[in-house]
């Protein structure tokens, strides 16, 4: 995916015909410290509507910390997070989720005691409004809501091809399927920004191909904006529209895959550089 269009415009069309809109999330001068350790140093970048944005970097570069800042799990000491045109006040993670952010985790964070369907249904919880008394009576609003949201979840289940394990407890599933169920849970929320933390970690080539196909289709069919962290360079360069490269908590590159690939700092960070 090469891009020749002017990226400062409000929206533009990519080479494969997808429309990329305005800025959804804008991170301005984020600095995150744990005591004396500086995990993120003064990083700024933005994520545009409808694009696939990758964050890459060597181990310990601060990629996951960055994702945790976006999802509200870490609070940066300095800097501002702008989401859909307004500055985000300090928030608990569940409030961030209510704004329309969903994410998956590097080491799967599913609810092992629940079935696949129930796990995916939890993704809908910000869309279900019946109060505890309506739920206790069940008939009426709670049941209608349950069925309406079940239909949405079933679409996601169809899309990710996990119909056969719908009622299986998650604890019994193999790793690759768990990853897919976690993606389904995040997707069921119909997020305006989806964060994927190493969606392909520990997968074989075939599973990676499946996952790449799901990510592309998700972006294409539902127009979901995706920010992802990934180590497999081939995958990142093929999937993403724009790439942020981090090293030791600093941003060392930002641009299209081609630009990043030819950036000298990036090459140094990955291949090492002779210090004299």
């Amino acid at each position, binding site marked *: 995916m090469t891009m020749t269009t002017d990226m400062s415009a409000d929206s533009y069309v990519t080479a494969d015909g997808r429309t990329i809109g305005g800025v959804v999330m804008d991170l301005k001068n984020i600095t995150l410290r744990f005591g004396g350790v500086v995990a993120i140093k003064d990083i700024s970048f933005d994520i545009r509507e409808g694009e696939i944005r990758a964050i890459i970097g060597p181990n310990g570069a601060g990629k996951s910390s960055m994702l945790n800042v976006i*999802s*509200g*799990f870490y609070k940066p000491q300095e800097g501002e997070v702008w989401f859909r045109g307004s500055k985000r006040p300090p928030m*608990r*993670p*569940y409030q961030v*989720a*209510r704004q329309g952010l*969903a*994410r998956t*985790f590097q080491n799967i*964070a*599913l*609810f*092992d*005691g*629940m079935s696949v369907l*129930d796990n995916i*249904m*939890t*993704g*809908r*919880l*910000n869309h*279900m409004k*019946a109060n*505890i008394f309506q*739920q*206790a*009576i*069940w008939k009426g609003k*709670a*049941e209608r809501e*349950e*069925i309406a949201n*079940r*239909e949405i979840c*079933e679409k996601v289940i169809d899309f990710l091809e996990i119909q056969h394990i719908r009622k299986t407890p998650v604890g019994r599933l193999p790793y690759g399927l768990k990853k897919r169920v976690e993606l389904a*849970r*995040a997707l069921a*929320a119909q997020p305006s920004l989806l964060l994927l933390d190493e969606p392909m970690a520990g997968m074989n080539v075939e599973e990676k191909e499946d996952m790449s196909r799901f990510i592309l289709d998700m972006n294409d069919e539902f127009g979901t904006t995706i920010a992802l962290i990934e180590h497999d360079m081939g995958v990142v360069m093929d999937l993403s529209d724009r790439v942020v490269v981090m090293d030791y908590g600093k941003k060392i590159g930002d641009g299209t895959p081609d630009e990043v690939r030819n950036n000298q700092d990036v090459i140094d960070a990955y291949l090492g550089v002779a210090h004299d």
Partner: protein
Amino acid sequence: MFYREAGDFKTSYRDDNQTFPIRLDRMGYYILMFVAFLVVPFFINDYWVNAVFVPFLIYAIAALGLNILTGYAGQVSLGTGGFMAVGAYACYKLMTGFPEVSIVIHILLAGGITAVVGVAFGLPSLRIKGFYLAVATLAAQFFLVWLFNKVPWFYNYSASGQITAPERSVFGVMVTGPNTEAWAKYMICLVFVVALAWVARNLTRGMMGRKWMGIRDMDIAAEIIGVNPLMAKMSAFAVSSFFVGIAGALFFSVYLGAAEASEAFGINKSFLILFMVIIGGLGSIFGSFAGAAFMVLMPVFLKNVLVGGLGWPTDLAAHFEFMIVGGLIVLFLIVEPHGLAQLWRLTKEKLRLWPFPH
């Protein structure tokens, strides 16, 4: 051969969501309801009511309550006895304070008051987990029982320090007091059990239950996908305490008739109900009933066998009863740590394939 879902097609999500998706289960449920409401009341006598049915039904409510908190929401509680006492004393104060209001409303209000107290004692759960929370709820147990013994206002300054249920009736039928008929005691408990079990099932199959289970299975992930941990934990404490409070109110007003906090609602009650939940199966409505049945019926059964069948002296039988029940609990936990509900689930899995398991 008969127990299977083949041929029983679900054409709507509503059908797919029902409590008993297999036809035979559904039939069994209807038959059970029919027998419980329309057969048992006509054949029941004082012994069966006081030894078996009423304690089973009341403990089932308490076990349902604790199961919501511990089994579904993952918050360990050792304060069940204390919360039952809150229900009992609240019911007593309401019954004596507003004699013209129906007892059913008093029992429900007693549940509501217990819910408020439960939320107050549940607040530490936001900071502490597991064993530490168990110790915090243990404090609730001792504090509440102490409070009810210490402040005479709670037992209306009676000389004995006991609370005694006045006579009250529902639809002209006496349900509390010494002159209550056996079937009336049974019926009022049964109605409460069926209604509350239905509520528990509705809450646990819907979004509330998913939030609770999310907090239980992985609280950080639950928070990141949008569960407010404060609301989820507090609602679990509130609903659980509501159930336990109703159990306490019924236990005092319908079953005991007269009670004293440290005797009727001591730490033993908390452990008894915790055992019911663990033996029955954490996170299972059926398990709450199975556990309550096990813990209530086993001693009665053993007593009948040892004293009635073998002719042993009562005191010897009583001690053996303790040993045998204790041994059975240990055996059960070793053989099936997930409780009777899991055994039942496995049996159903097997039955579904029987007699051709390939």
